[in-house]
Each structure stands twice: as structure tokens, then as C-alpha cells.
């Protein structure tokens, strides 16, 4: 059964332990990323009771410093990564992700290619029709660690449909993509792929966002209504908070290029 963190604390832990736990979390609230993380832990309604208990106990046993508490959270969360509720994203659904050429090259490089060769491969092959690209990239990952992606709520529609204007900035804002440079955004390669039958997409939880190796910058747990719909929602940039909101969001294990379903678009 999935429950909220505060319910588990109240049900299974003494007042002193709760106080200790809360103080431990305060240790990591020194930067905005982790302030958001702590808020998200309390908001997440998709974590199982046993998972919370293990996390709380681990934090209670950790030394009270920011680094160790972060490591503890990441270590425990990693155990429960991709074990949450299955998302309503049937096999065959067209999913999409916006990725920079450098990020994709670094995913390819994990299979042994040099970064230079990976970049040249992408530059040369990104214009190749998808039927051929599927073959060429069949052994190459199109994501690393945990893949986060979006899809359209309208059945049969392509994953980036409705994002208007269809620019790198708008896509980054609507998908809640982290950017180091305020002015610069993209260029992105828009990858559209078909959810394979063998893959089980999940509704994103804090277990995926904070299980490392780096914590996800723009993330918020699925609301009750999103949970009912069966997927999470991207955390749009503040500048776009008034627009039509986040896109459906799921997480799953990394897939390879043979799942690609449309020619690559570059924005």
C-alpha cells in the first residue's frame, strides 16, 4: 500500500524519532534543489509503507551531516527505483524526449565509442530515415540510468504535439529541463520512440528523482488526479507556470535506438 511520509512517521515512529528525522532533513535544506527534494518527500503519495520505513530508519541511523544524509537517501531510494506503480502508457504508445546532441553522444559512449566518434555518428545519422536509424542504433542507448519521457494525453497523437511554439525553449520549459545557461537552451534532438512490450513504464516518484547519480532538478510528485490518470506531470519552469501546464511524464529503464519511431527532429 502506498502512503504519505507523514502518515508513516505518525504510525510507526515515536515523537522523538520524528523530531530527529525532521532535524536530519533540515540539514540538507541548504540549497534550493534539496529544499524542493524535502518538500517532494512529504508530497509523494506513491511510495510504499515498507519503503518509507526503510528510508526513515536509514536516515535516523545516518550521521547528521548534509553529505551523509543525501547519500543515505540516494542509496535507499536506489533500491526502490522503478518499482512504483505502473503507468498508464500502453505498449506501442509514442513517447518522446528532448535531448542534446552531447547528452546522446555521452550515452552512446557508454558502449565504447569515443565521444568524438559518437558526436560524428549523431551528426551524420540524425538525418537518416528512422527505418534505417533503428538498425544503426539498435545497440546504442538513447538514455542513461533512468529514462524520463513524455507522451500525449490524446491517444494516437505524437508526444510533442500541442507544444506551441515548437521551439527549444518552449520544449525545455514545458518538460522542465534543467539548463545551466540562462540565455541558452538547446539545440535539442527530439527522439520519438514506441514503448516496447518488454518495458514497464512507471509513474515517477521521489525514488527515481533522488536515487542519484544526480538529483533531478525539476521534479514534483504526481498529484492525486495525475495518479488517477496513471502518470506524472512535468514540472514546468516558473516562467511558464501560467501556460497550459506540464506534460504527462513517465520513467522507465533505458531503451536502445531500435525503439525509435519517427525521424529525428532538431530544434
Amino acid at each position, binding site marked *: 500500500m502506498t502512503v504519505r511520509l507523514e502518515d508513516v512517521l505518525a504510525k510507526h515512529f515515536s515523537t522523538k524519532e520524528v523530531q530527529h528525522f525532521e532535524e536530519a532533513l533540515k540539514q540538507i535544506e541548504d540549497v534550493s534543489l534539496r529544499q524542493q527534494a524535502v518538500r517532494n518527500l512529504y508530497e509523494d503519495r506513491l511510495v510504499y509503507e515498507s519503503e518509507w520505513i526503510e528510508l526513515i530508519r536509514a536516515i535516523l541511523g545516518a550521521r547528521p551531516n548534509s553529505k551523509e544524509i543525501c547519500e543515505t537517501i540516494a542509496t535507499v531510494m536506489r533500491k526502490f527505483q522503478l518499482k512504483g506503480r505502473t503507468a498508464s502508457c500502453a505498449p506501442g504508445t509514442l513517447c518522446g524526449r528532448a535531448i542534446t546532441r552531447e547528452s546522446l553522444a555521452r550515452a552512446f559512449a557508454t558502449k*565504447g*565509442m569515443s565521444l*568524438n*566518434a559518437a558526436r560524428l555518428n549523431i551528426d*551524420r545519422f540524425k538525418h537518416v530515415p528512422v527505418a534505417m536509424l533503428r538498425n544503426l542504433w539498435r545497440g546504442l542507448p538513447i538514455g542513461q540510468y533512468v529514462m*524520463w519521457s513524455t507522451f500525449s494525453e490524446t491517444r494516437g497523437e505524437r508526444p510533442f504535439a500541442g507544444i506551441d511554439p515548437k521551439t527549444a525553449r518552449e520544449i525545455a520549459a514545458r518538460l522542465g*529541463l534543467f539548463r545551466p545557461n540562462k*540565455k541558452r537552451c538547446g539545440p535539442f534532438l527530439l527522439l520519438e520512440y514506441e514503448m516496447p512490450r518488454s518495458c514497464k513504464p512507471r509513474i515517477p516518484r521521489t525514488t527515481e528523482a533522488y536515487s542519484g547519480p544526480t*538529483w533531478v532538478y525539476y521534479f514534483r510528485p504526481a498529484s492525486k488526479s495525475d495518479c488517477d490518470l496513471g502518470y506524472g506531470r512535468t514540472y514546468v519552469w516558473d516562467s511558464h507556470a501560467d501556460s497550459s501546464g506540464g506534460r504527462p511524464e513517465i520513467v522507465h529503464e533505458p531503451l536502445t535506438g531500435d525503439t525509435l519511431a519517427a525521424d529525428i527532429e532538431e530544434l
Partner: protein
Amino acid sequence: MTEWTEDVARLVTRLHGASVDDLTDWLRDRLAGVDDVGANGGEPPHFLIATLFDALDHSICSNLQKAVHFLIEELAEQNATWSDAAAAELLMLSDPVLINTSRRPDLIEMLSCLARPTKDAKVSPAIRFAAAQALVTLDVKAAPEFWFSLYEEGKDEYAPIVVEGLVRTDMTALADWLGGKLPNAALELALINLLPFMIDRYGSGIATQMVGSLDVMSRQSREELRILLNVIGAGSGEVGLESSIELVRALSGGLHLVAQLLLQAVSAEIGDKVPHAFETNLMSVRLIAQHQAELGIAANLEELWAIYVDCIDQAFAHSRLAQACLKEIVAVLPALLVDKLAVHLVSDRGYTREQITEMLNNAGFEASEALARVESVTFSTYEMRFPVELRDEMTTELWLQKEQKDARETFLANTEDSPANDSEWRGFMNEYLKGS
């Protein structure tokens, strides 16, 4: 100036004041997944550093280089203390952090030790793989046997590393080795995925010729390759100038250097030092041309041949330079082109068959039948085109290079949205020069 987002700006400020030790500690934490700055879902920890690197001050880059070097040393000595994931993240920083390291020999030694298959496997397979990947990233030219041994140890998982290692080191050894390994799905896929790199480095003529000559490749891969070559415009051995631009640039640069020397030699009285300087410079050109000339010609770059031959002509116009020049040139050119050159010198440049035959013999070449048939040109028809045409060509080229350099610097100083890589720069410069 780059305007970082809040958390990144804080990090950059911190890095500015950090010592190498501080940076080492920070890197260790970041690579293990603990840091103040987040990422996109699934983005590896090293990615932020790789993204920021080019925009950081030289002093930070230099300290980062030292820190990464130190951590690799630590990994090589006590790899048991490193998790596979953190070690792989560290080694992935080779590009961009260590691409221009001044301690390259040490680094290669450490990476080779980590990557080398050993019976007492103290290094985990994942770290070994990541170290081997870093070696190809750093363009290390190890002996073919080193790459073969990696394949024997890691089999198909190592196909992309081994194929690329050999492509960078010795294409002939790769072709011979593949001859005994194919058909093999993993090796064939690695080779096909490396085609863009091969085209970039050697020109599409040689790249397609190389993969096309592997008749032991499976029928499926050959078919895939045939269609692919048509789609990406590499044709079946034909080449577009664009794909060989780097090749043309490197070779032309070397040839212009020779031409400049010749210009000096012609305009001044030829002293004893000139032939010697010319010979020395030809040696350095030879290093560039040795790998490139054959490829350029094989790629049907007649234009390149014309420039080349222009320079050669000028050297041969001076009897004191001829021997030195021919000696270097035959070392650079493939046999077919030495023959072409010999015919050219007799038919167009006033040398006798005997003179050229003797020079060729001295350089270890036999005169061909084509040379025996060629008619000598008389001196009255010989007209030296140098220096007017070539000097104009050189001046234009030098002017263009300066213009591009100036434009790039101006652009960099005034905007942040600079092109991200060489190919974007090339496109931008073409547009810029059109407009100016």
C-alpha cells in the same frame, strides 16, 4: 559573459576560489552522486562539468585537469575504493578535461594499465571497459596487438572500442583482422557506426573503400551499408568535397608552407641554407601528407592534386632542390602517383626521362612503362607559372584564414550564442563571409 542560472552561478563562483584539493574533493562527491547542483532525469553526474568546461576560466580548467588526473592516479592505484559507476563517470571526463593535458604519457600509461586484460583481475570489468573507452577518446595509438587482446578478453562487448582503436591506429591491420573475424554482427555494427568518424578522418573515398572491401561481411550488413552510403551521400567511393574538408585543409596548409619557402627561394638568391630549410620543411609537410595525400587523391580531389603539383613544379624548377624534393615526395605519394608525377615532370616540365629515371632509382623506384613512353617537352614550351598564380592563390588563402580568425574573435567577444562545434563554426563562417 555567460549568464549562469542561480545554482550553477554559485557553483562556478565556488570553483573559482577552489584549490586543486578542494576541486578533487568536490569531483569525488559529484561523481559519486552528491552535489548541490541537480540535473535532468537520467543525466550522468559528469555531464554538468563537461558542459561547463569550455566556458570556465583557464585557471579553473587547469586545476580541474590536475584534479581529474589525480583522481585517475588514485583509481589506478586503489581501484577497489571506487565504485564502478563513479569510476566510469570520472573516466568519461577525459573529454573535454584531459584532451589537451600536458601529462598525456602518464595518463596513457595509467589508462593502459587499467584497461589491459590481466589474469589476476584486480580491476573490475566495468572499470577496465571505461578505461579502454577513455583510451580511444584520447586518440591513443596503441599497437594493434593491444586492441586484439582487448577483444580476445571482452569479445563482442569490446567491438566498438577495438574497431575504433584500430581505425585510429592502423586501418590495414583492422582490415586484415576483420578478414578473419567476419561475419560477426557486433563487429559489423561497430564498423558501420564508426563510418562517420572514418569519413571525417580519412575522407569518404578511403572509408567506403575500406568497408566495401570487406567481402566477408554478412550480406545483411553489406546491403545496409550500400543503402546507408547512398542516403548519407557518401556514394560508393565517390566523395563530396565537404566530407574531406579537414583533409584538404591539412594538406593545403602544408603545401602552402612549402610554397612560401619557394617564394622566398625564388625572390632571393638561393643560398646554401635554402635547400636545407626546404628539405626540413618538406619533412614536416610529409608528416601531414603521408596519411592524407593518398586519401585525397583516392577521393578524386583533382583540385588538391593540382595544388600539390604546382608546389612540386616549383621545387623542380630549381635543380638544387630537385633531389631533396623528389626524395621527400616519393616518400609521401603512393606508387601510382609517383608514376603520375614522373610522367608530369617529363611531359610538362622539361626534365628528361633519364634524369627522372635516375632520381627515381635513387629513391628506390623503378621507372614505369608509362614513363618510358612519354615524350619530353622542349624547354621552349616550358613556362613557369610560379610565382604569379600560386602567389595569388596563397594570398587569397591567407587572407581568408585571417578574416575567419578575426570574425570568430569578434563574434566570441560580442555574443554568447556562439556555434558549439567546428562544423557549426564552419557553417557560420561561410554565412558570415558571404555577408561581409
